[in-house]
């Protein structure tokens, strides 16, 4: 079980809700993935479009994780978080402060400032974070129970480009709930994240952008289960040379 903020979850996948071809495909993909936590953005809306059958109504059965996507500064992110809390009745916030337009890498200074202010204001902050150990540890020191480092740029689908580094980050923060957020492209990336010991994976484009989002969501579900099971089973260490798996005793010798 995955525990976040004293709530328990069976699924270790979190899914974004953007870029799906339709609300129906989104709905079916979320079900196929088995996810219980979904992210949403906060924008100006016309409340007349928020009734039955709306996006918001269709997601009510999930734990909603509002994000501050599109915010560059702590000030913008804090304002968005406050509106999200009022609109959705949750104190969870996926905190994003973008530092660079092309890579969408986070701005650590703004991220840390916003985290500090939001935690003081009673929020449960899940920060979208750079994957350097120093920033992730600083977020933990500010009181984050969950930290969500990227493994590659948002929407890039590059996957875990530096597994050795992501392993070191995992080892550096053994008591923190670490979620790989951003960069996932394929099920093998998800499996690797769990093999490395990560607690959960958050993805959006990898599912929404697939030819069949619903089938890809199901593939991701199985990938997560396989990776987590492998991690809990104790993966054998890599070795330079062969070790025979068949017994050498009782070998048959030719006559003559």
């Amino acid at each position, binding site marked *: 079980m995955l525990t976040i903020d004293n709530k328990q979850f069976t699924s270790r996948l979190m899914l974004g809700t953007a*870029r799906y071809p339709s609300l129906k495909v989104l709905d079916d993909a979320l079900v196929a993935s088995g996810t219980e936590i979904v992210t949403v953005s906060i924008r100006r809306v016309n409340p007349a479009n928020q009734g039955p059958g709306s996006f918001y109504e269709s997601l009510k059965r999930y734990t909603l994780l509002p994000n501050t996507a599109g915010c560059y500064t702590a000030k913008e992110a804090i304002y968005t978080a406050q509106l999200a809390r009022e609109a959705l009745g949750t104190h969870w916030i996926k905190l994003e402060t973008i530092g660079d337009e092309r890579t969408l890498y986070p701005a650590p200074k703004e991220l840390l400032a916003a985290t500090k202010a939001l935690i003081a204001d009673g929020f449960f902050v899940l920060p979208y974070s750079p994957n350097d150990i120093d920033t992730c540890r600083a977020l933990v020191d500010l009181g984050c129970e969950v930290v969500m480092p990227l493994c590659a740029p948002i929407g890039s689908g590059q996957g875990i480009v530096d597994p050795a580094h992501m392993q070191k980050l995992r080892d550096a923060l053994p008591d923190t709930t670490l979620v790989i957020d951003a960069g996932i492209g394929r099920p093998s990336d998800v499996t690797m994240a769990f093999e490395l010991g990560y607690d959960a994976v958050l993805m959006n484009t990898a599912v929404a952008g697939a030819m069949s989002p619903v089938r890809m969501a199901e593939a991701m579900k199985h990938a997560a289960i396989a990776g987590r099971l492998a991690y809990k089973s104790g993966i054998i260490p890599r070795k330079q040379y062969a070790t025979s798996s068949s017994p050498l005793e009782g070998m048959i010798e030719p006559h003559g």
Partner: protein
Amino acid sequence: MIRVNGDNIPHIADETVEQLFVRRGFDPQQQGFAVAINGEVVRRSQWPSVRLQNSDVVDIIGAVQGG
């Protein structure tokens, strides 16, 4: 004038947030959105009592698809 989600509309003296919603054709009981005036969140419980001033900037926000 007041500015609501980027649109300028006439200011009506003593209009509350709740009354603004009705004027705009929104059901104030609808769940899932929030209001801020001049960058300050107005709690739902205050919608019937907070009155809009001329040149106020009102943001009405809700959840949309996001990653």
